């Protein structure tokens, strides 16, 4: 077993999770595949969303996968970085919007 928590080659083994629970694993991969098909959003748009979310959930496997997926789709690095910023803005916004609670509490407790 590897001495580090993340091994890039583990991404290739993702499909193996069905070996320990075929039903749930299978349902997950069916769902996953369906989600990324062309729909009301293009597969290209979904790839950029996935890339942004990959950063927000800080998943190195997903970042590798969706950077490569973006390259395959001809997505530019400018588009990729803008997508990451969109994710980062929501994440930092989610932190900052809590400061309203801080402000409320501060005001309530102060004379």
């Amino acid at each position: 077993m590897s001495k580090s928590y993340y091994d890039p080659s583990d991404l290739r083994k993702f499909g193996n999770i069905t070996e320990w629970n075929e039903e749930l694993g299978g349902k997950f991969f069916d769902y996953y595949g369906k989600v990324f098909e062309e729909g009301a959003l293009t597969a290209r748009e979904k790839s950029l969303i996935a890339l942004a979310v990959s950063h927000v959930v800080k998943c190195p496997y997903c970042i590798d996968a969706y950077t490569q997926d973006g390259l395959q789709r001809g997505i530019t690095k400018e588009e990729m970085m803008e997508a990451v910023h969109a994710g980062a803005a929501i994440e930092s916004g989610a932190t900052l919007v809590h400061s309203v609670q801080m402000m409320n509490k501060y005001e309530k407790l102060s004379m």
Partner: protein
Amino acid sequence: MLLKSLKKRENELANTKRQLELLSKGVFETGELPKFSAQLETLKQFPLKPKTLEILQINVGYMCNQVCAHCHVDAGPDRKEIMTRETMQQCLDVIKKTGAHTLDLTGGAPEMNPDFRWFVEEATKIGVKDFIVRSNLTIITANKKYYDLPEFFKKHQIHVISSMPHWTKGKTDKQRGDGVFKASIKALTMLNAVGYGMPGSGLKLDLVYNPSGAFLPGDQGALESDFKKALLSDFNIQFHQLFSITNLPISRFLDYLIASDNYEDYMYSLVEAFNPAAVENVMCTNTLSVSWDGWLYDCDFNQMLGLKVNSSVQHITNFNKEALENRIICISQHCYGCTAGAGSSCQGTVT
């Protein structure tokens, strides 16, 4: 930025035997990944046999004005291998009797062969259905003597197929060299000006997309629509079809994969994307490739690996259609490049 071919640099990969050795070792030797022959055996497609000859692809020389990072030919200004008029005449004699509907001239930059125009003129007289010239575009703007190429192509109703790795300057220049994007745009404008690539025009202008890195091409249709949109809005350029071609792990692309530590992952990507449906239509089943010195190969890639056709007939001088149709196609692990995803050929996807 590459300036010299592997051959000129005396790189070990200029030796085709070394390349074939690498392609059979590592993950394929340990059995981590199945060999291409094993995949064909599973599909009961081994050995791979040709069907009817439809395309004769002639490589008129390895000389090129560009030194692209991914080039499977290892072409460049320092390559001196050029087809002579005598070999061209032998090719013309063969074209007359093969019945192949497509004649496909490639290189290097085919236009740099001093007898290129003579060959085109003579071959046009034979009357093949589809006469392709693979032009790298920048040659058209490289020197005054090439400026009239769009008119020359038009006169002979040539089907022009040109390389364009991306609709942005950065990616194009990184793969093909500084200034290539600007020159390519100018050349495309010149081709459009004489009618090439315009909607409804019989003057066919198609683009070839090769990924600029260690990844596979995405969906050909989606890429075509992105290319069309961007080239029209940014440069007012039009073209007909986009062919997406997978980079095969040979020659300079193999060198890049190894140097960038991407080789193993790339081979995994190719094997994981193996598509049995693509095997049915791989181009080596309907194509023959002729080298500058008249040798025959199953495809341009096998030519660059020095894998001559496995037949009693190996040279254009003793071309025999029946003997060649009975041959067994030479394969190695590079063939995974033509069977990944939607498949890949000089005419784009195959499924």
